[in-house]
């Protein structure tokens, strides 16, 4: 598990919960590196939905270009971490 500065264990659990809810899978089925599309049958709508719900849950902005990195839990946590960091920096 990559360590992240702005997303703690609780935040990580929130992210995982959101994704599993959207993909309609049990949290036990998802690992840090299992891939949404290949392993969990996600489609393009699922990906944009994940982005959208994370923006609302964390009050952040995620560029749609980041979808390319948001292919598994690890990737999503990294993107959210950066977005939270960017938001914190912007409010300084």
């Amino acid at each position, binding site marked *: 598990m990559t360590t992240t500065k702005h997303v703690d264990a609780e935040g990580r659990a929130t992210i995982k919960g959101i994704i599993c809810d959207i993909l*309609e899978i049990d949290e036990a089925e998802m690992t840090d590196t299992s891939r949404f599309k290949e392993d969990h049958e996600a489609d393009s*709508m699922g990906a944009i939905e994940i982005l959208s*719900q994370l*923006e*609302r849950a964390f009050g952040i902005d995620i560029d749609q270009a980041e979808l390319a990195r948001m292919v598994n839990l690890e990737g999503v946590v990294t993107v959210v971490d950066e977005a939270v960091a960017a938001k914190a920096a912007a409010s300084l």
Partner: protein
Amino acid sequence: MSELVLSAWSVVSPYGVGSAPFSAGIGAGTSAVGELDRAAWPGPFDRCGLVPDFTAAEYVGKKGTRTMDRVTAIAVTAVGRLLASCGDELTAHPEQIGLVLGTGSGSVQSIMDFTRDSLVGERPYHVDPARFPNTVMNRAAGQSAIWHGIKGPNTTVAGGWLTGLLALSYAVRLHRGGHCARVLCGAAEEYSTQRAWLEWHGRGVEERESPLGEGGAVFLMETVADAREAGRTPLARVLATRFRAYADRADAQKTLAECVGSALDKAGVAPEDIRLVAPLGAGAELAAPEEAGIEDALGTARPRWIRCRPLLGDTSAASTSLQLAAVLATAGESGLGPGEAALVTGIDRDGTVGCAVLGGPARA
């Protein structure tokens, strides 16, 4: 020309899911309008013809229904039950099956909830993308096709209370034009707090308190030959649909009488052959001219009247489809008898009237 028959049907209604409770309820004439649970359904009404205990998860399944709205679930359920009752052979060539589904304005709840999210969210685009298709009015028809793999023409039709009759007319035209071999045709409407408020404000004072209802009905339309080959009993021939318009409410009765007369002519049916009449029986000012207009057209004939409105509530876009289902429920498993005919009518507050004439097998 290949005449179409109704050979199977399916209903989701305030009596429950399925044609059996509907047939029993219509037969007994017991009202399915009941008290609303005000905690679950805030809004201006405290009575409603609600489909009991209906949720997408319960009737469509848990998988893939997280964002499915109520009207879509009603449609998917009605279409699914119709297909299940017909067997796999029906969908063996899915590209030859058309689906024509009536709607009021889609789900106004889904549409307005989406706008609300845009207006109150931290960002105006903080809306749920998975719910965006719910805000487009072909959602129920499209999702029914996706859910059940129906690949022929997929058309959504809207026309207020006349929606079910217009869907029937459109479906006949679609088939005659050679665009499909069989058509599934009907309409669906949901109860929602948002629809309730729009109806409350949109209605005249005199009809404001009349309870709403919800539900859906879907029919299989095919040629007699196809029905027989599949082992299905033709329940009714679709002999004619006809529509007219009135500019002044004072002309509504006369306009409907002309409309029915014209449909009977086209159908080649004499007024005395009409055994069943199912009028819309809508809002205060239009119910009386509707019955009077029918009586003007039928003269001395004394058919049996099936009045759905007091039993189901105002089911808006699903009304005339449910009236059609009530005719089939009353006709029973063998359908309309030889030489018998039935009439379904409606007058819309927007200035339009319409009717359909159904018939049993031609008299030997």
